[in-house]
């Protein structure tokens, strides 16, 4: 990561590898995450995201390579690592039968907080995630967004320097998602390093750094803006453009089979295209429905989704080759 100002590396994976039986779940994954970064870790289900997190949290031993968090080896020094990291898992993993306050008490005590210190920290956290009014409610009765806030508060009880979040926003509504991300930005601003897995592209856009894992291998690593400019994403001799026309769904099928069209996908009322430069604008407008009066075309840059789709395909072809 050649950023302008050199920040200390907080999380480092070096050829991290894990096998379950014959299945390779994580294959030689390497990356560095600098302090206060928001590292977005993306990839399809079952590609090895959670396995990487479990190795970095010291719960699972790697078969080869090593993981380091805050300069400590995750496998051999896991107890030291566990004291300084927080973890929030993808499914709601609090005690539904305990109240909000009791859940916080429990995690506080686990990290050795007692008496006044525990009370103070609990109060701070309930303030932070706005749960004070619900302190006496059962965790099981909270709605999805509130549950995630409570889970976040529990993961923060010991003021961790690094926070791992495994799909923290899966299944919660857009407003709650937005609020959770605002909290994450505040944490990042206060110096906490965040490691987040997600499926949402808009969330990926919010990250300072991104890694994309596909079938156990890390195939993309970098800052979102740099990734979109990668040459492999928009190869030489091709361009990306957006076609606005009536009945885009009907036009799409015709376009997909056309010579020179590498990728075509629907986005609302428009079609996003990756085409060879041999096809000119007039050809495309003609394909969009003859009378070009109602159709229009404009050049666009690659989105993160384009990056992942293109590179995944390249990775499959490479695997075949």
């Amino acid at each position: 990561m050649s950023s302008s100002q050199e920040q200390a590396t907080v999380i480092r994976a070096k050829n991290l590898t894990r096998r379950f039986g014959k299945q390779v779940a994580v294959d030689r994954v390497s990356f560095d995450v600098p302090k206060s970064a928001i590292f977005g870790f993306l990839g399809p289900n079952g590609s090895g995201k959670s396995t990487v997190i479990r190795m970095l949290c010291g719960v699972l031993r790697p078969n080869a390579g090593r993981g380091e968090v805050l300069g400590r080896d995750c496998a051999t020094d896991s107890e030291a690592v566990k004291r300084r990291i927080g973890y929030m898992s993808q499914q709601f993993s609090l005690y539904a039968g305990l109240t909000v306050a009791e859940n916080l008490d429990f995690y506080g005590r686990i990290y050795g907080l007692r008496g006044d210190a525990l009370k103070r920290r609990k109060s701070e956290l309930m303030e932070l995630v706005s749960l004070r009014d619900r302190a006496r409610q059962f965790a099981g009765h909270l709605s999805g967004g509130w549950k995630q806030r409570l889970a976040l508060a529990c993961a923060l009880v010991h003021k961790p320097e690094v926070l791992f979040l495994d799909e923290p926003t899966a299944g919660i509504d857009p407003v709650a998602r937005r609020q959770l991300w605002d909290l994450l930005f505040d944490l990042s601003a206060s110096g906490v390093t965040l490691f987040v897995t997600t499926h949402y592209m808009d969330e990926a856009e919010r990250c300072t750094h991104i890694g994309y894992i596909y079938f156990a291998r890390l195939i993309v690593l970098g800052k979102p803006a740099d990734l979109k400019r990668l040459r492999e994403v928009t190869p030489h001799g091709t361009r990306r453009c957006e076609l606005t026309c009536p009945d885009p769904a009907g036009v799409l099928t015709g376009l997909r089979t056309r010579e020179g069209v590498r990728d075509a996908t629907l986005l609302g009322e428009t079609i996003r295209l990756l085409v060879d430069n041999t096809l000119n604008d007039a050809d495309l407008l003609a394909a969009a429905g003859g009378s070009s009066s109602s159709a229009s075309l404009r050049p666009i840059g690659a989105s993160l989704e384009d990056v992942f789709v293109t590179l995944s395909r390249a990775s499959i072809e490479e695997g075949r080759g």
Partner: protein
Amino acid sequence: MNGLAAILLKEFAHIRREPGTLVFAFLIPVLQLTIFGYAIDTTIEQIRTVVLDLDGRSASRELVEALTNTRTFRVIERVHDEESFERALVSGRAKVGVKIPPNFSERLLHRERATVQVLVDGSDSQVAMTALNTANLLGLNRSLRFGRALADTVHVAPARDPFGAFSLPVEVRPRMLFNPDLRSASFFVPALVGIILQLVTLFLTSFAIVRERELGTLEQLFVTPVGRAGLLLGKLLPYAIMGFLESLVILLVMVFVFDVPIRGSLPLLLGLIVLFLFTALGLGLLVSTIARTQLQAVQVAFMIMLPSILLSGFMFPREAMPMPIYLITFLIPVTYFLEILRGIILRSAGFVDLLPHIVGLAVSCVVILALSVLRLRKQLD
């Protein structure tokens, strides 16, 4: 021991919040004990009996009366033809049929052998055996009466008692030790203490860890600095305490409701109850390492409970089992515990008397605990 206090506090909060756990731990065992204690009564009385009396004179009526007086038989029907007699037995209305032939009185009068036919429904072997024994004894008694009357008239007797009356030459005089009234409660209730104790601790502990696994909180805990020892002890200790309190309750019910006093040493009994508690908790832990969901935990726990009830000597005497099964009973920890319970409570047996069983229980405890902790550790890594 990191986090032991936190987990203990949390478990007690869970138990307080879920009255179901407390009901399961305290009310159900007492109910079970009461129901089992009263229902499992192996003294068989009042077997439904049908009588076909083709004679109908005083000798045959006396015989039927004597039959009823044993309390083993209860005449529910008197029929007058073969067909109804058979129907009563085939339909199951009667378990025993007594058929007195038409010439019963005449044959007795002429000093000829009179035959009474007793048909017994053999479906339930215990009922059948009781009916058979009582019927045979009754026949023998009535024959002796005739013999005695005859001996008195001819002044010849095979033997005489100190008062000079007619007597049989050999008298067998059995005396019941430890349970003189042959109350089945004395036999079953102490063993029930063991069975119920295992049932409750096994189910409670097997749930305790599987539930956390199912909720995903177990994974969350592994990421915290909670030590394995703290986690295990924090999970088991509350249930060990509950199990111990529960055994005190059951013992109280046994002594005061069922009137089965503890003849032996109470400290020895309590000490061995603790040893057994750890064995049962270990079994629960083992179930937790095998089961992935609470449903599976129930199934595995049942698989362990079934042989514990059927083969431990709780229901059927182990000595009567075929050799291969008899050997299997030594693999069931509760077998040793039942011997210990009955030994201390009924026979006032001491440490030395029970040594083989105590060693057996101690070995199963160590093996089970070691196995479950090893399995759990392997899974976490």
